[in-house]
Structures are given as C-alpha cells and as structure tokens.
C-alpha cells in the first residue's frame, strides 16, 4: 500500500518535472533546467533509496526554504554588485537591439510627397512620389513600385482620399507608420506634406563590441552599464551589468549618499536601543509591582495591561497616527487644552522620533512585562530572606539579586528584541513613512527612516526611479549587522547554559 502511494507520487512528480523541463528548454533557460534536473534526481533518490528515508521528512520545508529564502539571499548578493535599477533594467542584448532601431533622417535622400487614402475597412493606403518622380504604393509597412495606369493604382480611386483636415486629424496614426525602403532604410512621416528617408543611427560590431554612430562617426564603447563615447557622453538606456563594489563605494564615499545613509544608520541604532530600553524599563517596573503578593486586583491589572499586545501592530500604528494628527488628533487637543499649544508630531524630526518611541513603548511594554513576570517567578525566594537577614535595603535587593538573576533569562530576549526593532519596518512605515524628509539628500531618505524602510523606498518608492543595486547593498549591510547580533546572542546563551550546568 505504502509502496503504491509512493509510486503514484513519484510518477506524478516526474511528469510535472518533465513538463516544466520542456518549458524551460523551449525558453532556452538551460542553467535553471540543469538545476531542476539535479533537484529532481535528488528527490527520486531520496524516495527510492532506503538511505534517503530521513530526508523525505525534510523535503517540503527545505524546498521552500531554499527556493524562497536561500536563493533570494544569494540573488541579493548578486544584485548588490550590479547597477540594476531605473535606466539599467534591460540586458545588454536588449539595449543594443533598441539602439539599432533608432533612426535619423537622411536629408540627402530627398523627400517623398504623398496622397493618403482610406479603404472600406478603414485601412490606410499611401501613394508616394519620390524625388526622381518615381511612384510608390505603400500599405501595411510594405512599398510597391508602380507605374501610371497599373491596376493596383486604379483601385485607389475606389478609396476615400484624405483631405488636409483629415490628415491633421490622423497625424498621430500616420506618424506611427513606417515603410521599408530597403534592408535598413525606412520611409517615415516628416511633416504633414511629406515623408522622408530614415536610416539607422547606430551600427553594432559584435567582434569589437562597440557601437558606431553612422552620422557623426563617434564610437561608443560599453563602460559600466552604458555605451560611452571617448568624451564621456553616454547613450541611454543603459544595460544591467556587474559593476563590482561600486554600490558599496557609493554608500560609503559619495557625500550625497553617505550623509543620509549614516544619519539613517545612527537613528536605526538609537531607535532599536530606545525601543528596547523603554519597553524593558517599563515592563520590568510593572512586573515587579504585579509580582507583589500583597497587591490587590493583580489579575485585573495583568489582563488589562496585556491588551495592547493583543492588537495587531499594523492596526495600532495606524490608530496612533490618528491620535498624533497635528490639527485634529486627540493628543494635541488635550495638550492645547492643558498647556495651551500642540506639538507638530509628524512634521518635526525630533517630535516624530518621540512619537515613534511612545508608540513602540505602547506596543512593546506588555511583552517585556510578561517575560519579566515569568523570570521573576523563577527566582528563588530564599535569596531575599538571606538578604533581609543581612539587612539589605529594597534597592540593594533589586540591584544585587533581582536584576542579575533576571538578566540570565531575559538578556537573550533583549538582544532578540533589539534585532527585531532594528528591522521593525511596519511601525516606522505606518506611523511616519520615514518623514519628514532629509533636505538635500540624493537618495529618498527621511529623518525617521530606519535602514529597512530606507531600503524599501530605494527599491520600490523613489520618485527618481528605483535602484535595486543600491537597495541590495544596504540590505547586505543590514544582514551583516543583525547576523552579528544574533551570533553574539547564540554565543551568549550557549555560554550561559554552560554556566548553569556548572552550578
């Protein structure tokens, strides 16, 4: 029975793989095809061989992890060393093809006057008269040499001839047309009265990998994603190309990029520290109050104080943005009623940061409170009795017993919380969107942007076009920082476990 199911599964699997493989083959994606076949072979091996048994359990989760986490990370590394972004979206082949399509008017070839006709189906026909008086019949991109009295010419009489007013009305339609004169030249509308001969402007030489401007004779060579003339003039669009560590260099040495980047970076660290610090301080304080067995209504307080944590953060952030609204928000209304003036919460760089910290305190203190309550309950009460005998004050007890013992279990969570807030995109994005903007920045950076929201705007929201390359470079910087933090965290917890074992 189990064998049968396995057989059916493998059969279906292989059929699907073959179907995808054929598709990839027909699209010329040979590298992906190769990877696919290797993967499929591995799957077959795992399910046929007994040695592959444990891997069967790992297969689904690993597949999605490799496809959607590992591969994107590798791809991010690749994009970070390219110039991928607005202006450099296309591949080099596509750019060459596009540039070769560009044509210039050849004044020496003379001009072609014309009469235009429309047939019953609304199709356009043209009768051109060339500079030497030759007659050409043009339709659907094709030209046909004709003589007076030809049958094809007589058919024109059945069509409606376009008046000058018609021509003016149809200008857009006509100017989009072109007729192939020979292999490279085309007839295109030049003005309302005549067509002209258009020749390709550039000629690409594959052996020398350069573009020749047939009009001026200038040679353009590919330099860092653009075809560039000796005097530095670039042809647009550019193409995407590996440009080495340029993006990183830009991040750390171009003043218009580095300035905002460093500001964003410093605020990110401040933000993460402030978030952890405030939530932990408040959470611990409340936990100590609530852990007190003599306090009445503890269960009520606990239940109510946890509530902010139960609301999805994206909803809370949007609600708070309403409360912080400068003209209409309730916070400013209360401030106006009590101290006489409101605060420009989301317009002023400093107040925007204060608003963010208040919001994150609201969002985060319940978590710290829960965690600290748990940790406090695990502290052995005999310690305090011993301290009392020695005559220690409450502060001394807190300082020398509670805090150090609490830290053992809470410190890793604080580091995790730091990493989490370091990348806390939704709170920043939903409350301030990184605003107010930093004046004079070349990249779209704001005073309250943290690295992750800055990256998002670089990649998806910039009005000046997107820069996937630079965004990926920033992403790698974030990877590096959070990676190091987590590594420290593992070392830290690992070390603590060893300490506990020794005790």
């Amino acid at each position: 029975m189990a064998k049968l199911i396995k057989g059916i599964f493998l059969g279906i699997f292989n059929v699907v793989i073959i179907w995808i493989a054929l598709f990839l083959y027909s699209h010329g994606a040979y590298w992906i095809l190769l990877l696919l076949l290797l993967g499929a072979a591995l799957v077959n091996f795992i399910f046929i061989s007994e040695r592959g048994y444990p891997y069967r359990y790992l297969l689904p989760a690993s597949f999605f992890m490799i496809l959607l986490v590992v591969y994107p990370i590798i791809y991010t590394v690749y994009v970070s060393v390219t110039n991928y972004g607005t202006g450099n979206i296309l591949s080099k082949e596509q750019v060459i093809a596009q540039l070769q399509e560009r044509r210039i008017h050849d004044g020496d070839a003379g001009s072609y006057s014309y009469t235009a006709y429309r047939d019953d189906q609304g199709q356009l026909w043209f009768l051109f008269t060339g500079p030497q008086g030759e007659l050409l019949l043009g339709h659907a991109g094709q030209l046909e040499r004709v003589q007076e009295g030809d049958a094809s010419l007589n058919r024109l009489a059945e069509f409606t001839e376009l008046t000058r007013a018609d021509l003016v009305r149809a200008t857009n339609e006509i100017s989009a047309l072109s007729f192939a004169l020979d292999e490279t030249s085309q007839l295109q509308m030049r003005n309302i009265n005549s067509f002209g001969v258009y020749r390709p402007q550039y000629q690409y030489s594959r052996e020398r990998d350069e573009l020749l401007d047939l009009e001026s004779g200038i040679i353009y060579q590919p330099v860092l994603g653009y075809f560039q003339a000796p005097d530095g003039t670039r042809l647009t669009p550019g193409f995407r190309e590996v440009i080495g560590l340029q993006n990183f260099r830009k991040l750390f040495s171009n003043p218009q990029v580095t300035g905002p980047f460093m500001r964003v970076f410093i605020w990110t660290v401040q933000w993460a520290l402030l978030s952890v610090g405030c939530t932990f301080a408040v959470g611990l304080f409340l936990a100590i109050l609530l852990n007190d067995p003599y306090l009445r209504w503890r269960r009520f307080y606990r239940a109510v104080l946890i509530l902010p944590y139960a609301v999805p953060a994206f909803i809370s952030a949007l609600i708070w943005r309403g409360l912080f609204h400068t003209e209409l928000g309730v916070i400013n209304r209360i401030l106006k009623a009590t101290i006489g003036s409101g605060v420009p919460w989301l317009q002023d760089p400093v107040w925007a940061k204060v608003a963010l910290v208040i919001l994150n305190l609201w969002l985060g203190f319940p978590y710290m409170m829960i965690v600290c309550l748990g940790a406090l309950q695990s502290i052995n009460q005999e310690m305090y009795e011993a301290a009392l005998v020695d005559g220690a004050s409450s502060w001394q007890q807190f300082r020398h017993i509670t805090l150090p013992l609490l830290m053992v279990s809470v410190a890793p969570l604080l580091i995790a919380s730091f990493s989490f807030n370091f990348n806390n995109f939704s709170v920043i994005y939903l409350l301030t969107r990184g605003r107010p903007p930093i004046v004079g920045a070349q990249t779209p950076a704001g005073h309250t942007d943290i690295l992750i929201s800055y990256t998002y705007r670089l990649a998806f929201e910039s009005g000046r076009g997107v820069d996937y390359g630079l965004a990926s470079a920033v992403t790698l910087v974030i990877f590096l920082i959070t990676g190091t933090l987590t590594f420290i965290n593992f070392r830290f917890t690992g070390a603590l476990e060893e300490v506990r074992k020794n005790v």
Partner: protein
Amino acid sequence: MYRRHSFLGALWRHGVLLVFVAFALFPILWVISASFNPANTLVGQGLIPPNPSLDNYREVFTSEQYPIALWIKNSVVIGLITSTLVVIMTSFAAYAFSRFRFKGRRTGLFASLLVQVFPQMLAAVSIYLLVLSIGRLIPALGINTHAGLIMVYLGGAMGVNAWLMKGYFDTIPNSLEESAMIDGASPFQAFFMIILPLARPILAVVFLLQFIGVYSELILASVLITSTEKYTLAVGLQLFIQDQYASRWGVFAAASVLGALPIVLLFVFLQKYLVTGLISGAVKG
C-alpha cells in the same frame, strides 16, 4: 522582597498602575468609540459618541471602492492556509531533526537558525523578481496571486518553528514509538498516530504564531499584491486611511475593531500557550 503595604504604599502603587492602565486602554477605547460615531471624522470626537450607530460597520461591509470586509477575509484565509501548511511541513522536518541521525543534520539545524537571522522581508527585491519569473512559468503562482504570496510565506516555515517543535519532540520519550513499531507500525505511522497527537500544544503554538505573523505581514504582501480586491488587511487598511484621517476616521475605526478581533480573541483564549512560545524566542509581527 515584598512586605504588606501601608496606606500610602498601596495608594502610589495603584496610582501608578492606573496611569498605565489608562495609557494601555486609551487608544483602544478611543477607536471603539469612534467606530460607533456616525460623524466619521477626527474632528471634535469625544470619548462617548453622541448618537451611537452602526453606520461605519455597515460601510465596512458594503463599500465597493474599498472592500474592507473582503480584505479581512483575504487575510484570514491566507493566514489559515499558510499556518496549516507550515505546521504540517515543520512537524515533518522537526521530527526528522529530533528522531533520525543522518548526514547534514547539524548543518540543517544550523541553516534553519541562519534563516531566522536573515528575515525574509529583507530580500523583498529578490523575492519580487523571483515571483515575477515563477509567474511566467506558472501564472497561478505569480505576482498578484494569493497562492504566490502563501508560497513565499512558506519559505519562512523553517527557522524558529522547526526549533520550537524539535525541542518539544525531544521531550517525548522514544519508547512510545518503539513499542508501536514492535506492534507493526511503520515509522511514519508511529509519527503520525503517536507523536503528533502528543505534540498538540506545540502545534497550536506554531499555528498561532504563524497566523498572527502572516496576518500582520506588510512588506511582502504590499510588494507582491497589486490589485485592490486581493489586498490583505494590512496592505489595504493603510492605503485606505493614507492621511485621510479627517474624512475616513469612523469607517477606519470600525475596520480596525473588526480586523483586530480575530487576533485579540485568539490571544485572550490562548494566552497561556502563546506566552510559552513567545518566551522561547518567537517575536510577534
């Protein structure tokens, strides 16, 4: 450490706690009040609405331009499907990590930890481009499909979940499966009929954490979903309110209350499980 309170001692403690209770409750009450206020504006709202009505809630369910109820449904459906699949996939993986000894076991465990270090959303650019090309091959999984978004979320299934589950499986004694296998069960049957039922609490924790995480996820959803009727609540709600607090506050408040409800209910009823999971290192989105 704690002593019986004097009158003053009790007074300041309750005073401080009540200040924090007010801080915690105020935004919630304020929004609930706005949701019943037919004025639908931030202007001059008080804590108790003058003529409470259900107009805003009706708008949430009937608006054609902003199908908020549909967004909530999208979020719930995507959350349920993702969490179910994640629980299935992760329990398999965690079982292998817990019970079998094989080549690459340590590497695999370490890799799933590393994955946690690199939050998926950081690679949003690459994921967007990847889904774009997957969509060319299989349109049903491309940009602007729920299936594609769910597929992307599944990528993060390993990581903390695998560790949480493996830790729990490790505490279930091996002898249970061994006796089942002596009775003729295959390893898979032993896993499916013995271990999984015993591991229900941790399955619930992973399911819940995953559901909450997906429900609140913003960055990938906003990059991958482009048409209004397919938005999740997190994407749609922020576009709906987008600085229009003066004119849409009431409807927004009603949408917030309805949208928060699934999670708040889960949280209130399953707090005990959730807290365990959270303390073991998971972070709520």
